[in-house]
């Protein structure tokens, strides 16, 4: 089985990289981009039957830093 974990900076945490991407889009002539947030997507190849609780533990212990990041697990 596969799972995909989306890791994003929490709302309210300034994302300087996203902000730089937003500026770059503006200078390319794309108008109306009012915000960009940059995150990570992590794909996991897992043993069949791995529980969502186990994947959540992986996120809490390593994949996300919950001080600044939120995560979302998607079992594929």
């Amino acid at each position: 089985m596969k799972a995909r974990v989306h890791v994003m900076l929490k709302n309210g945490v300034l994302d300087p990289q996203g902000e730089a991407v937003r500026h770059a889009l503006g200078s390319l002539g794309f108008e109306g981009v009012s915000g960009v947030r940059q995150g990570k997507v992590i794909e996991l190849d897992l043993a069949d039957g791995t529980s969502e609780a186990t994947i959540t533990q992986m996120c809490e212990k390593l994949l996300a830093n919950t001080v600044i990041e939120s995560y979302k697990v998607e079992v594929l």
Partner: protein
Amino acid sequence: MRAAVVVFPGSNCDRDMAVALKAAGADVTMVWHKDASLPDGVDLVAVPGGFSFGDYLRCGAIAAQSPICQAVVAHANRGGYVLGVCNGFQVLTETGLLPGALMRNSGLKFICKTVDLKVEKSDSAFTEGYNTGDIVAYPVAHHDGNYTVDDDTLSQLRDANRIAFTYCDNPNGSVADIAGVLSENRRVLGMMPHPERAVDAGHGGTDGQALFRGLLAQFATA
């Protein structure tokens, strides 16, 4: 004082740290990240700067899960002293020994220069060699030194005088100009600037000497 310096793949300030500690009079042992325990009788563990594990995933995240870090956390929980500099600070936040997190610099650039710091509180073993309000020059060299904590934690840090160093001219966007923070028991210090790179006239400055000498003096009198 017996000190151990942790070495991860990608550490690059480990030997500078050892030199600085030895110059101040410490007996220094290097420990490898795969070691599951610290040498007997270690008083201080120094987690050095560098790019442990290539900064993969997040700076310090992989190092924080290494066997030696479990021993470092146990050492801190027993009341042992820990100093984390630069990547070492990032590792200590990832282990949870220190609050907050270090994010990409607000200007997005790697910053490599000497900066002025203000010693905010000198009632820890690490800052004993300074007076509160002293201005000291330490080098910084980091891409991810933008210290972030939530408002509640920031209030707690302020109320308990756990902010040890602040930047005089904030280079990286850190909240409240924070350059270094102490643990609740004041025995764990994490900081982005490098005291170990300011201990010899050849470094261009010696303001870091007082940190190591002050720390050593605590053990000499204990």
